């Protein structure tokens, strides 16, 4: 359905998933996908410096919708984000339209998002950690629109530890 992982590659974090996964993706279900940090970004028509962002890699990204950007939305995307440079080489391909459930690790607040863009630039912030509840999430592996981010946290906080399921 979506581009699949290369043979022999497995997520470094998160339980292993059954090999026939991905055939029927139920919106926002609870199979663990990945864990890490999320930041936020703006897209679509917007005010201020956000106005230059456009509709994102998928063309339909909007700040006011519960959307997100995934670092392996496509090969071209991967070449820009390069999570493998931070030891996150196993992040699976999830293209435009993929649906994920994002849970704030500290508060448990959750939001259901659709992938509509490529991001964040994982490679620029290798090793960055956010910790709470006795466990730490490493590396920026998700970007949320203001609508999605503010549903689980405060926009002025900038970065959150999250658990992602699908």
């Amino acid at each position, binding site marked *: 359905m979506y581009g699949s992982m290369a043979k022999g590659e497995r997520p470094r974090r998160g339980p292993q998933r059954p090999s026939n996964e991905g055939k029927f993706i139920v919106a926002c279900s609870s199979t663990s996908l990945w864990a890490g940090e999320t930041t936020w970004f703006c897209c679509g028509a917007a005010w201020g410096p956000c106005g230059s962002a*456009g509709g994102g890699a998928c063309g339909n990204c909007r700040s006011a919708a519960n959307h997100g950007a995934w670092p392996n939305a496509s*090969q*071209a*995307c991967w*070449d*820009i984000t*390069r999570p493998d440079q931070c030891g996150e080489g196993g992040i699976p391909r999830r293209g435009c339209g993929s649906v994920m459930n994002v849970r704030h690790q*500290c*508060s*448990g*607040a959750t939001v259901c998002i659709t992938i509509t863009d490529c991001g964040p630039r994982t490679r620029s912030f290798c090793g960055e950690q*956010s*910790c*709470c*509840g006795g466990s730490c999430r490493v590396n920026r592996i998700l970007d949320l629109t203001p609508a999605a981010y503010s549903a689980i*946290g*405060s*926009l*002025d*906080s900038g970065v959150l*530890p999250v658990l992602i399921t699908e």
Partner: protein
Amino acid sequence: MSLLASLLPPLVGVLLLVSGALKVVRRSLRAQAARSALPRLLKDPNRAVWVLRGTGVAELAVGIGLLTAVPAAAVGGALLGAAFLAYLVAGRAVAPESSCGCTASDSAPIGWHAFARAGAVAAGAGVGALAGDPWWTAFAERPGVSSAMLLAGGAGLAWLAAAPEHQWRVPLRRLRIRLFGHPLATGAAGTPVAASVELLERSLAWETVAPIIRSGLLEHWEEDGWRILHYAGARRVGDAERPVSVLFALDARATRDGLTERVIRVGVVDRETEEVLTPELVAAPGA
């Protein structure tokens, strides 16, 4: 004119050598290729990298040819320049927001600069094809005028090779910092409120009461070494909701980098009756 025709090939040659070498040795070529219009034109990111690297090799070959006055190199250079122009026209039509991918660190969208650069390569090499003498012979005949022309041409090409956003400014700014020191504060101002908020949001205290908090940080103040952070929230009483204030007190100097165990105090107050609700709503973990 014949002097100009003799001197243009080495100038274009140096430009091609530099941009070709950077394409061949650059490790982040994949990212450069991804930003360019090539993946859209070729419909394959891997092929785009190979095309970019192949172009680099061709640039190197033509550059060396131009410097050593191999006659065919001038024609090759003119063809290369023409090919760049064709690519830019196609790239601008297919993916106007993508970068040119022409020089090493170029990430700006295709603009007039890229066209001027490609045009200079085509024209410079083309005119060079008309040269009678190799450049070193021409130079030896009229060294004064030749030096001036080479200098002027070199400056023009260097300007063309730079990205449009005035990249020469960045090295100047770096130099100024090196000479006069870093101009920004070293942080005597104490712990920023944002650092306290960050510490709070990663704490067990936050985890415990986050579900009843609705607002962002309303206000903050300091008292006796404590930093007080005030949020608004709501608690459910039967079917109705009552507004509450959620207050946190933490060491005004503490940040999440500190090694000591952090104590955070939490209070919950009804916003209308001022009744203190802490014992009812917040059970300290482990208590």
